[in-house]
């Protein structure tokens, strides 16, 4: 085993590095979006790319999200691999028709002759004090759209690895970047041959025996924190980071819940019609006779995302997770 030099970086930096490496490796990779050029994106994720690869490879588009995604479709039809940046979650909505009616379906419509290797980067979620329309968790819409992969990293290393995998994928990938983790820091080595993560595999971030917290993206660190806090109350919680919502890693999730017998799904997105329902339902289908309690959900409320001064009441935090764990019918335990 060779020793690899680890370097500290933020998630935003890891994403930039992933884009840069992908562009260097394959001239077909083009970045386009609003303010991705000279400005380097409002979150600076495309910083330096226009300078290094030229404006034809990293292009400031007119402000029109359907136009951005629609032209990316045409570019992909001609063999390019566009990486599109949607500036904020809610500003991807104008592109939904292109996404649902074309991006997700083109391969299928054409019996596989016209795949669309498009990566759609969407900074998502709250916790950054953004005013309305800047903090939506829109993953439920993407999950309900067959033909898309839906991926979201929670660590610096995964940000790099999964984005590389997304760009390398011959299918469209909605790549959800948790805004409030952009500035999270960690040590990681992009030259590690294992740096590129296959899409579709969940990972157990913390092992435990009492119950499983199933989560992804911005809620992963919160769940890890909750697991630490739970230790003090005598619960040994396992934390599964899904990483990929589509495809869904049933095996990893079900194996964990079969071990622990209890589960809570945690996400920031609204609960009703959100990802948690799907996850709880499929876990229950697979682990029914192992479950000591129904799979519970801790999610954002079913309300439009709150204004900055109230968002802390909305976001699933440690206490709310622990409350749910407490409701997992421990009395039933013999």
């Amino acid at each position, binding site marked *: 085993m060779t020793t690899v030099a680890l370097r500290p970086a933020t998630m935003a930096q890891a994403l930039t590095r992933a884009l840069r490496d992908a562009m260097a490796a394959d001239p077909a990779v083009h970045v386009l979006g609003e303010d991705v050029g000279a400005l380097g994106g409002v979150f600076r994720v495309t910083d330096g790319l226009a300078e290094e690869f030229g404006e034809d490879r990293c292009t400031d588009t007119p402000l029109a999200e359907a136009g951005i995604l629609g032209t990316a479709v045409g570019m992909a039809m001609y063999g390019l691999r566009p990486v599109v940046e949607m500036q904020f979650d809610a500003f991807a909505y104008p592109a939904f028709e292109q996404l649902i009616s074309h991006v997700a379906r083109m391969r*299928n419509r054409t*019996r596989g002759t016209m795949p669309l290797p498009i990566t759609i980067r969407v900074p998502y979620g709250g916790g950054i004090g953004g005013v309305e329309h800047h903090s939506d968790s829109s993953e439920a819409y993407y999950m309900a759209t067959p033909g898309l992969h839906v991926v979201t990293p929670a660590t610096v290393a995964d940000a790099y690895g999964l984005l590389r995998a997304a760009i390398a994928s011959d299918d469209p990938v909605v790549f959800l970047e948790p805004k409030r983790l952009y500035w999270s820091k960690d040590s990681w080595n992009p030259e590690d041959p294992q740096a590129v993560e296959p899409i579709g595999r969940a990972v157990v971030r913390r092992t435990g025996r009492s119950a499983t917290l199933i989560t992804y993206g911005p809620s992963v660190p919160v769940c890890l924190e909750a697991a630490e806090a739970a230790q003090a109350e005598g619960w040994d919680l396992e934390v599964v980071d899904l990483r990929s919502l589509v495809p869904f890693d049933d095996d990893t999730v079900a194996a964990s819940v079969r071990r622990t017998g209890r589960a809570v799904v945690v996400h920031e997105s609204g609960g009703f019609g959100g990802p948690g329902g799907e996850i709880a339902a499929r876990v229950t289908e697979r682990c029914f006779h192992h479950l000591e309690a129904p799979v519970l959900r801790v999610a954002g409320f079913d309300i439009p995302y709150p204004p900055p001064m109230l968002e802390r009441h909305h976001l699933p935090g440690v206490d709310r997770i622990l409350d749910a764990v407490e409701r997992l019918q421990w009395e039933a335990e013999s």
Partner: protein
Amino acid sequence: MTVMEQRGAYRPTPPPAWQPRTDPGPLLPDMRPYRVLGTETAAQADPALLRRLYAELVRGRRYNVQATALTKQGRLAVYPSSTGQEACEVAAALVLEERDWLFPSYRDTLAAVARGLDPVQALTLLRGDWHTGYDPHEHRVAPLCTPLATQLPHAVGLAHAARLKGDDVVALALVGDGGTSEGDFHEALNFAAVWQAPVVFLVQNNGFAISVPLAKQTAAPSLAHKAVGYGMPGRLVDGNDAAAVHEVLSDAVAHAREGGGPTLVEAVTYRIDAHTNADDATRYRGDAEVDTWRAHDPIALLEHELTERGLLDEDGKRAAHDAAEAMAADLRERMHQDPVLDPMDLFAHVYAEPTPQLREQQDRLRAELAAGAEADAEGTGR
């Protein structure tokens, strides 16, 4: 900091950054649709081209008639006829080189066929056995597009990509008058102009969007006038005059090919049939209007010109007619064969590799089908 400090110096000049980005004059379309047939310009038209157009129009009309008949015979789920619009459909196909790309809407199977696509493949969507019946790369024809105007940004992106790669490729995108109202029309034309992409937009203004007449769709002087707002030239042409449409589109394609950027062409034409076989046009328009347009029929216009100039005799007409009948007979025969379908195809192309979830569903359907086949064999069933 006080207000006074913030304030700038005095310079009563015009706003510093402003200058017209383009001279709008050359972008504006003429106020009358451009015509060739029946005018003096016709004398300059290439006889070979006119004869070719004639043969294609006759074939195109026959194709429309045949496809409409196939709906009545239950062989097509639906058919949006381009009867009356054949000059546009045919010219759109003929002005392109092999390496160029065509972006048709649901109404434009004829353009795809005129470009060389097998008519049966072109009709697959409307027969209902699959969504797209052909490999788009083969004849460089994008999938027939149903969501209005959404194909336009695709054409722009493809043309832009080709230019970035240094390839000499032009994209021609078709859209209806109604489709110009969609946001995607706007965004596509804007991107095309900003990127100077080699793309030509052909609006077939056939007077209606299903039942909605043009006057409820736009208040613009013409749809071609929209071009100026994007900084591209707008051209207005008689869409039933095949020679005129061919010339205007050829010019636009050449302009794009030379790096001149996009053009918006409005072809004024008319939808002689109902929106589709499922539509009842009598609910929103009278016969009289249709009749005025029948008198401006694209085939009649061209036939008259060719006959007047001695370029077409009865034999020539018969030859075109016979070729059209042969195509129709072949189409009829092949469309009367049931397509062979495999339900497992439902899972084959959703992703490059089916997800584990799709694999499970695939297995379940396979088992169901096997059980069904067994039950059928045993003459039982639930």
